């Protein structure tokens, strides 16, 4: 059976908003598609695994973000190389910010990121919280929930993840949501994102397989609960 190696980075620190749901969804769908998921939890100080098919990261408390900052800079080169090799990644909220160039706190202090996305994030006293929907070029309409105080600004030429249909996205002003570099996606959408948007999940799996040159036809799974949940989400208040 084809193994699918998923690396979940900083699972104990970056896990605030049901982020483990993304991992569970990748794992289960891989199983349902006849693949063998192998999960690797990467903790600060560990050696980053050599064989990687998908990398996942979640959101964290401000205090946790400080705690892992040194470590993520340490593995920055490794992450850059994986991105250049088209490894699919999903970085939600806090890890999205750390994948950017820098984060400026309320006190004006600069926290350096790994710079996979040409974005910078400014702290803001008001949180952007609510149901969000975006339109993406490759994965259709996606539904989720956002809850972040950072305002993220994209550099010139940085590709976006999607365009906001409802909600705030990166900063509440320019209708952009998230960022995409090769197959690495950064986003503020949780909910969690993957169970609610099976098309995106299967695309990540497909991208991972394509990259390794494996022809494995993904099955058509029963996603009527996800569709029903998405229809609901459209009509719930922001």
């Amino acid at each position, binding site marked *: 059976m084809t193994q699918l190696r998923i690396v*979940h980075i900083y*699972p*104990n620190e970056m*896990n*605030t*908003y*049901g*982020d*483990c*749901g993304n991992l*569970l*969804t990748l794992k*289960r769908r891989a199983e349902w598609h006849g693949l063998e998921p192998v999960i690797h*939890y990467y*903790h600060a100080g560990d050696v980053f695994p050599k064989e990687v098919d998908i990398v996942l990261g979640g959101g964290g*408390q*401000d*205090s946790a973000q400080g705690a892992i900052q040194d470590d993520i800079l340490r593995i920055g080169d490794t992450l850059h190389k994986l991105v250049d090799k088209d490894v699919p990644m999903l970085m939600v909220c806090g890890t999205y910010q750390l994948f950017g160039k820098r984060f400026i706190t309320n006190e004006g202090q600069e926290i350096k990121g790994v710079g996979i996305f040409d974005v910078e994030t400014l702290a803001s006293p008001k*949180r952007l*919280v*609510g*149901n969000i929907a975006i339109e993406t070029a490759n994965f259709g309409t996606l539904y989720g*929930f956002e*809850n972040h*105080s950072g305002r993220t600004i994209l550099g010139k030429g940085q590709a976006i993840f999607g365009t906001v249909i409802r909600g705030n996205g990166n900063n509440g002003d320019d209708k952009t949501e998230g960022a995409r570099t090769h197959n690495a996606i950064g986003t503020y959408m*949780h*909910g*969690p994102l993957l*169970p*609610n948007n099976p098309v995106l999940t299967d695309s990540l799996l497909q991208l991972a397989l394509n990259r390794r040159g494996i022809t494995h036809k993904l099955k058509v799974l029963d996603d009527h*609960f*996800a569709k*029903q*949940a998405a*229809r*609901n989400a459209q009509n*719930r*208040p922001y």
Partner: protein
Amino acid sequence: MRKTVGTLLGKSVAQAVKLRGKSGGQAMPGLVVESILPGYLGVMLKQLPEGVVLITGTNGKTTTTKMVVELLRASGKRVLTNATGSNLTRGIISSVSQQATKTGRLPFDIAVFELDEAYAYQFTRVMRPRFVLGLNASRDQLDRFGEVDTVARLIGDTMLSATERIVTNADDKRLSLIADQAEMPVSYFGVAPQLLKYFPRDDELVAVEGSVPTLQAAEVPLSVELLSFKNAEAVYRVGKKRLATSLQVTGQHNFQNAAGALALVQAILPETDPAQLASHLAEVKPAFGRGQAFTLKNGSMLQLNLVKNPASFRQGLASYAKSNTALMFAINDNIADGRDMSWLWDVDFTSLQGQKMVLTSGSRAADMALRFQYDNVVVQTIEPSLETALHSLSKQPGDKVIFATYTAMLKLHAILGKQAGKTL
């Protein structure tokens, strides 16, 4: 003067709301009095000879407050408290005006209020409490609070406003750290080291396999310790005494809450015999919609259980979800429930694999069903209407359990109250 006017105003607004058959009877009088007569609450509460006690935290506020109130009453105190779940300042103003005499006198010795963790500190600026019980800080309604550290800070600020003593949970690292640094006496309650696994702290809820932070026993002396529990029986150590008691209040989390209640009452009434307290504790019945049992027309039992966040959901499943019961999950996403459904993914439902009857309901019934799909739990029916879902659940053979978010619980409680007419 302000006492009389405010009280009459509160009473007449309450009357008007009641006459017009409107809901909101608990908040409206407080809102009106607060805006017309600011300062009313402070003036009123100053009358109480033994002051004010606050209970706050993420989970267990209502049940613990009920325990503390009943223990104090059993010890002969006249206790003023707020109506169940009406735990914002306005709810307390409503309760005060309704329980005062027409001349604005409060015929009570002491007040024990349950306060929402976000509003508790605001209340302390009206009236400094003598004692504050901080129960726990856990991920809850993060669309409202942002993060768990914020929740802990809010509860901490409230604890630090106590004038005599803080009572808190030694096993909640965030809260015990705050209490430890306070320049004030602290009473800690906790559970025996071997029981820690039944009462996971926030960080353990989401920690991944193989990296679970080691469960450390509390490093502070405990004034009340839960030594063991089995079914409804619990053994506590209060000071140096071992005390066995039996609880009518269901749910294993309530063994821990009861330790908090005992520690608080001990602090308020240090002269009371702990054995007396333990026997009074056995008399306390479940609070509104918190593991409350109903007998249905066909004679079967139905238990209604509030779930608010990963910790309470997990405790509820461990306590009530038996393999032979029909289960209904009623998930709403109104403001009081939390708009974000992400929290459902921080609860492990794999224990329900193979469950015979699982029904989901509420405005987010499909999200709950989706969550079950990924834990390989089979969902029989998705029925967003609570009324219809309750109807089909009632027709199932045997005992039933409902897990409901706040507004779903209120609605189901109202329907059940009409149907069954009798609570156990």
